[in-house]
């Protein structure tokens, strides 16, 4: 299954590379708010980043495609709690953690706005794979589980070129992530978040 995801993404990249003209790299801080399985973690995460590489199609820069990679850490402290078992109990305070990594192939549509070469509001969709590592830390002990899943990420944002002749710009976006990752061991259902990203980009035109 994993191989299928990777091959799909690689294939899309090849197409993108062949057709692409102008492109840009970006690197963004990425904050996220969990929307699902909030009994495990409902704290917002400010610990994350997103990087990507996108190619425009055509001189009017209305469409682009590319690849995005992101990672984020979610964590929450849980006060002391007693869990009953069939023939006993265990009491501890603990920390729930999720280390998340996502890789998507994405495409975007840009709306014309004002000065054509400086502002690029857009909407886009990324599809790919998500890997979550779920850790429960208690004292020196750790319960851990890992899960891969399909990731869908609609996104809306804006690219702002600093100056007409500058190759640097600012990027801001909001995105919704839905992935099928789940952990039966830790009773964690699907994984969905809403994220905010802000950072810079390096334009190649």
């Amino acid at each position: 299954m994993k191989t299928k995801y990777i091959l799909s993404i690689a294939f899309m990249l090849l197409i993108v590379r062949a057709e692409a003209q102008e492109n840009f790299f970006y690197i963004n801080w990425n904050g996220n708010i969990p929307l699902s399985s909030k009994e495990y973690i409902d704290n917002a995460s400010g610990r994350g980043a997103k990087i990507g590489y996108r190619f425009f199609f055509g001189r009017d820069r209305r469409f682009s495609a590319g690849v995005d990679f992101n990672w984020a850490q979610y964590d929450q402290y849980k006060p002391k709690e007693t869990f009953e078992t069939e023939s006993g109990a265990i009491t501890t305070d603990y920390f729930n953690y999720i280390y998340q990594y996502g890789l998507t192939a994405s495409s975007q549509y840009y709306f014309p706005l004002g000065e054509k070469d400086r502002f690029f509001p857009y909407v886009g969709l990324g599809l790919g794979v998500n890997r979550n590592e779920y850790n429960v830390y208690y004292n020196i002990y750790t319960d851990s589980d890992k899960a891969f899943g399909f990731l869908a990420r609609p996104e809306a944002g804006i690219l702002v070129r600093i100056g007409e002749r500058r190759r640097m710009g600012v990027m801001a976006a909001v995105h919704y992530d839905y992935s099928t990752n789940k952990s039966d061991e830790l009773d964690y259902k699907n994984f969905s978040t809403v994220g905010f990203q802000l950072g810079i980009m390096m334009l190649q035109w």
Partner: protein
Amino acid sequence: MKRLFFVLVIVVTLVGCQSEPDSLKLFDELVVSTNYDTKAVFGAYTTYAIPTDTIGFVSNTNPNDTILVSRADNDYYPRRVLERVMSNMNDREYTRVGRNENPDLGVNVYVVKDFNLFQQVVYPNYYYPYYYGYGSYYSYPYVNTYAYNTGALVVEIVDLKNVTPDNKVKVIWNAYMGDVYSTIDLIDQSTKAIDQAFIQSNYLVHEN
């Protein structure tokens, strides 16, 4: 400009790196795990035996089982631990008697080092070949080890009232409290953990 870009790459990468919880918060309380024999009738026992100032010590790295003995000062670890176990047993209406006074229950207290206690299920119902009390810890049913120091304080109650015809005794309750090698205040955390072990074992009480 490119330099700034790469600096930002590094900064964002570091921000995104995995981190683990604050160890002070992690280690400020012991994990308390208790298990009991679901067939045991705890209310039917009346008396128990426990040593005054000696607890067992079992280590994978030191195959020669040994014991921890209290020094003269009252603050030493084994005595404080044993006193807290006795206090809880007495609160549950069990009466302490000498080992030669035919006790219903025997209480073993020991520290295990380098044993993988929480990764391997260790339930009561296991039998010791014989009950000698302390210094007979050669047949514990867990063998896996961590690569680093880890340890647990173990309190174990064996049924001396129902010794098998071939002289075996059954463990009917145990409590594992760890990790005792990573504590911030060993005695305070251990005594609180012992209290917690009894709190979460409300069936452990003598019924008149």
